[in-house]
């Protein structure tokens, strides 16, 4: 972000990492071999993301991708999500969902997460907490993850 942006709250929202993931999302595209998928819609802004997962016989998320359009916050969050839960078992991914959404909506710190989980990067989204109208953007992909894990093909953040 250009240093000329003087507003600290704004800087806190659009951190380097967020802008980086938003403009160069990781794991972007469609997984042809997906075993699970879900679509998330944020009616607030009309954003929609599709999440694709390959879950192997051992209940591990073997691969994951997303596609769709959205604001910087929802794209960055989706991109970070894919990095975070890839290679996790379903239960750990579910724990991530709970930890992340609680952190954003209630400000609580995640309870002891399994060692396998690399949660720290997600703290880049902490600035969203000060922007209540954007929390749904940050949680959209996560709700889609939750829906996919529970085999519900469509979810919304309303």
């Amino acid at each position: 972000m250009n240093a000329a942006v003087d507003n600290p709250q704004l800087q806190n929202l659009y951190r380097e990492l967020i802008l980086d993931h938003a403009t160069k999302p990781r794991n972007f595209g469609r997984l042809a071999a997906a075993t699970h998928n879900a679509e998330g819609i944020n009616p607030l802004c009309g954003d929609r993301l599709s999440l694709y997962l390959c879950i192997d016989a051992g209940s591990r998320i073997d691969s994951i991708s997303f596609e769709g359009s959205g604001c910087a916050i929802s794209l960055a969050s989706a991109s970070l999500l894919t990095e975070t839960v890839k290679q996790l078992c379903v239960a750990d991914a579910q724990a991530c969902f709970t930890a992340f959404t609680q952190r954003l909506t209630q400000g609580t710190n995640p309870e002891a997460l399994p060692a396998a989980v690399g949660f720290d990067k997600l703290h880049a989204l902490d600035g969203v907490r000060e922007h209540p109208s954007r929390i749904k953007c940050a949680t959209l992909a996560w709700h889609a993850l939750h829906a996919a894990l529970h085999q519900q093909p469509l979810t919304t953040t309303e």
Partner: protein
Amino acid sequence: MNLPQSQPIRDFSDYRSDFPGLHQTVNGQPLVYLDSAASAQQPTPVIEAVARYQREDHANVHRGVHTLSHRATELYEGARDKLCEFINANSRAEIILTSGTTESINLVAQSYCRGMLKPGDQVLITSLEHHSNIVPWQLVCEQTGAELIVAPINDRGEVELDELYELMTGRVRLLGIGHVSNALGSINPLHDIIRRAKQAGITVLVDGAQGVPHMPVDVQALGCDFYAFSGHKMFGPTGTGVLWGRESVLESMPPYQGGGDMILEVSFDKTVFNDLPYKFEAGTPNISGVVGLGAAVDYLSAIGMEAISHHETSLHDYMVQQLSTIEGMRLVGTARQQASVQSFMLNEIHPHDLGTILDHQGIAIRTGHHCAMPVMQRLGLPGTARASLGLYNNHDDIDRLIAGLEKARQVFA
């Protein structure tokens, strides 16, 4: 018409002070309110009319013999008279008070269309419409087996008139069309469209939610059959609105909702409905809201809708001119006739991010699909950023918007 930046529109600067909502800071900056198309701020006379009514005059209307009830009835019915004059209706019986444009259109879809549409019939709308002028027709078409057909728009955001007229066959029973697009600001050439529709024997409903607040409206001159609008977009309270209908058409329609006030006589054998406009006003109405709406009509009439239209047109021209100076700006909606609304995209920045960055600078715009998803689908956009004007906006508001957008460019540079 492009006004040089140095020419302030003097007469209107005074009105600004009537709107307390504008005089606050948001995120440490003086508020710039550019979201009147979603809902307008209210002037003190409206706010006061509502509060005074609630403090001094409130009782239920129509059926009371005591003084307060009489006073409330006079105020409520007085507002109807003001609305009648404001849009030049032929008679107060034609002014149906509703909770807003959405209810007005649903009333027509259910009461006028539901009993009349048959499989094979068509309802005609355009791609420009607000969801409130789409979904009620979808619902009634599904209920009756009729078909909803849609006239396309061009890249500027204008209805393709040739194609619209071609669709006006004998199968079309109703045309639902907006006065002004809330997403793109396009003004539809209603006089021509309505003339052609009437020649084809088609009943016409105009969604006037974005017309009434910004220009003079004369329903008799328009020649339509229904005209629907909302109080909260014309500087009145939420929960109020009007369905104007031609008296003969309204007479022919069954009631919409049942309840108190819309009946003359109820027994379990037979119920006799009340005369117009009461036949369509079931239950206790939004009395305080309508009193406020009456005050809004007084306020607008005192300024004059011609003057407001002129002021906003100048300001819109200025906004378009200034927006065009920004690098990476893409105006969305460039109809030759436009009013009060401008949608745009800036570089690859998602409108939602633009909205947040502007909000940090105290500038309120709307972002997203503006309840007009088909417009977005047609233009291949997930949504737009939209700045919309009210009579209280001025050059300074536009200048602040431009500066705010420059900052947004930097954030995503």
